[in-house]
């Protein structure tokens, strides 16, 4: 009888472990999907935590962030992030500090790509544009203020 209950409990634990494993596996499969948590975050720190699991980025002079000092039309602000001077760039994210949801885009790079992104983003008002680069497991950042003379969220 005792042995029977022992077996039962072991089986139950086994099932629990399997369930936990399944639970642990889910986040990695979810990563391939759109990162809703990071993109719907309303603060810079939450956005970075959602995207990279950390908000501690150190300023780096090796990131070349090209953004206009004055954007005449905030709806199309050209941004270029050149991190080709850094080795082992895994990812680049562009954030607009005062947008309702700061994270604009996130690029993950495989071995066949260089750490370089150029795009155009919407900015509702004058604010800082922040480029975050993940290289060798570390987070680096560069930022620049862009003065917006016409709001951009109206598209």
């Amino acid at each position, binding site marked *: 009888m005792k042995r029977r209950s022992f077996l039962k409990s072991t089986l139950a634990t086994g099932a629990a472990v399997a369930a936990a494993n399944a639970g642990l596996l889910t986040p990695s499969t979810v990563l391939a999907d759109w990162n809703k948590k990071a993109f719907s975050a309303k603060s810079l720190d939450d956005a970075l935590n959602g995207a990279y699991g950390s908000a501690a980025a150190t300023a780096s002079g090796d990131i070349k962030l090209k953004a206009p000092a004055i954007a005449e039309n905030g709806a199309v602000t050209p941004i270029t992030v050149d991190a080709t001077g850094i080795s082992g760039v895994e990812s680049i994210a562009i954030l607009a500090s005062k947008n309702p949801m700061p994270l604009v885009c996130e690029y993950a790079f495989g071995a066949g790509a260089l750490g370089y992104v150029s795009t155009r983003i919407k900015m509702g008002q004058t604010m800082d544009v922040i480029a975050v680069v993940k290289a060798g497991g570390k987070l680096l950042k560069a930022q620049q203020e862009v003065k917006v003379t016409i709001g951009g969220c109206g*598209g």
Partner: protein
Amino acid sequence: MSINIRMRGKSKGGVAEVKALIKHPMESGARMNKKTGKPYPAKFIDMVEIMVNDTKAVDAQWSGAVSANPYMAVQVKANAGDKITINLTDNTGEKGSESLTLK
């Protein structure tokens, strides 16, 4: 209907700069329709991938804060003759794909 993409690429010294211009409204879902008082429904490209000869080189995620009719440029390691493909999906499931062979 699929998303219209215009792309260009040029390889120089083993590195190719790939540029794409995409026709898309990029509606974030936050913009109000003043007539009805309701927001325009969200419709924006959220997933972008760039392949070099069927190997994924860049995997990007976008929000509705990327400008309408997005422009994008990335650099990949590729030579003349390599095939570059861009695949897109928006939040409503609409897809777009375009490829070219580098000269």
